[in-house]
């Protein structure tokens, strides 16, 4: 497969019908599926506040955002399907706990301000992670990501604006915003994955140009981007060690509690069970509807082909 690596090294796009190493295909399926699952599980923490949004304008924005996430899930499952798997199969793996989704969605949304913090921090971190994927070596994934990133950056601005309004609102609203940032900051930093020296699959993904920057580099980029935004918001990031380091040209920040990350990853986060159960329930309760749609389509295909033959 040297030919394959030469193409990749030349920054050519690999397309579905091109030859590719089996490990490349498997890695992509796993990553794209995990990404798709994250979109649809990620609908839950925000969906949690649609019914309670505090103004009709915010309700409309939130509903549209959660709808966009469903759309992102659809494009991504579509991209995975170009690699020879189907959505139903991937959903089964999610429901059986055999494929993961981003751990960030295992944290609860406890107040309205969490809608702001998710938009600002979680979508902000997602964008930093995803922008390089727009140049990923696999064409369908790269193209799906271009569209997704555009919408994500819109969501990120909406989240920022929610917090901006709260931070400048009543004392209770300001406290609500600060509390949300306190709870979402560290988990957002964990979204970039373990430190480089503990990230075993990164080197191969970099060589295949599925990944272009290391976890730690992306995390640093996110911190550098976010610190000045927090100042504009008038909110404090819950890390007393954050300070500008002129020598490095970056912000220093404190140590991440990786034991929390691994605990949540391994199923012990506050919402792991709830999220998966909700997803399974929607799927199971919808089974009779999907079966009906299939039965109806079969009947009418038969009818129309009979009519066509006559």
């Amino acid at each position, binding site marked *: 497969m040297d030919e394959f690596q030469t193409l990749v090294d030349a920054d050519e796009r690999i397309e579905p019908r091109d030859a590719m190493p089996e490990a490349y295909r498997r890695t992509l399926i796993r990553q794209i599926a995990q990404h798709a699952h994250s979109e*649809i599980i990620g*609908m*839950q923490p925000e*969906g949690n506040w*649609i*019914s*309670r*949004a*505090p*103004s*009709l*304008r*915010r*309700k*409309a924005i939130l*509903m*549209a955002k*959660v*709808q966009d996430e*469903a*759309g992102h*899930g*659809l494009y991504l*499952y579509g991209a995975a399907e170009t690699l020879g798997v189907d959505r139903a199969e991937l959903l089964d793996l999610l429901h059986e706990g055999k494929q993961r989704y981003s751990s960030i969605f295992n944290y609860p949304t406890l107040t*309205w301000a969490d809608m702001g913090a998710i938009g600002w921090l979680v979508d902000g971190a997602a964008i930093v992670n995803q922008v390089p994927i727009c140049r990923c070596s696999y064409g369908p994934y790269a193209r799906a990501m271009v569209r997704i990133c555009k919408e994500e950056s819109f969501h990120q601005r909406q989240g920022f604006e929610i917090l901006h*309004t*709260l931070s400048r*609102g*009543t004392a*209770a*609203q300001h406290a609500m915003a600060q509390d949300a940032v306190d709870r979402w900051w560290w988990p957002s930093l964990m979204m970039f994955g373990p430190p480089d020296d503990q990230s075993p699959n990164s080197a191969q993904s970099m060589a295949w140009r599925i990944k272009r920057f290391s976890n730690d580099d992306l995390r640093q980029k996110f911190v550098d981007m976010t610190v000045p935004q927090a100042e504009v918001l008038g909110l404090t990031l819950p890390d007393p060690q954050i300070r500008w380091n002129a020598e490095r040209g970056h912000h220093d920040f404190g140590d991440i509690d990786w034991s929390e990350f691994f605990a949540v990853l391994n199923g012990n986060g506050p919402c792991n069970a709830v999220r998966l159960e*909700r997803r399974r*329930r*929607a799927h199971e*309760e*919808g*089974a*009779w*509807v*999907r*079966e*009906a*749609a299939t*039965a*109806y*389509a079969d*009947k009418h295909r038969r009818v129309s082909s009979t009519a066509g033959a006559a």
Partner: protein
Amino acid sequence: MSVATLPDLATYALRLGDDSLVLSQRLGGWITNAPELEEDVALANIALDLLGQARTLLSYAGEVEGAGRDEDDLAYLRDERDFRNVALAELPNSNFAVTMARQLCFSTWQLALHQRLTSSADETLAGVAGKAVKEVSYHRDHATQWVLRLGDGTDESHRRMQSGLERVWPYVAELFTTDELEQRLASDGVAVDVSALRPEWDAHVDSVLQEATLTRPEGGPMLPAGGRRGIHTESFGFLLAEMQHLHRSHPGATW
């Protein structure tokens, strides 16, 4: 200010706005719970269209009233008895068949209503209707397709769809019940007399039911029907409690 003292036009806008707002709130409950991802998207779409209609209509009601109430004051600070939506709009989602039965009945009615309202003497209402006709045509089509699939799908889906229809049917009659206020506005060319919409509604719904191999329920109207008079079903208070609690917990705050 109680709704009872509003000008006719404000009350009329509020009625139609409340229909859309309350049904949007119900449909929003499907997002993340739908039978497939495409339905999360479709139901969110419909809910968003309805919410858009509600926002324009509630804002207009507040403007006509002239007491400085905006869309949020009207959505969040009225109690149950001051809501004017038809009871059909507030019926709980229950299962997908009930939701689709509710949607077919409501959208078919709403489309017929808005098609006529496009020629309202009131420019704002005519404008809302012009936009709504396009949206609601899709809503009606979406519900129609699902009622066909479920009615003529499997034995289980047929049984569930029939029982969904039975569930919502008692609330259909209210859609066609006119009153003095509507008659006054209709005689000025502002409002639509809903009693005139029934034949068109029957024609569409009957043809869908027939094609879907479903039976038109026989049950008569639920009496007394009262959404338009602020007499709601027991579940409605919970819908409002959930929708309004955060807004009400922070009086005067901006979001």
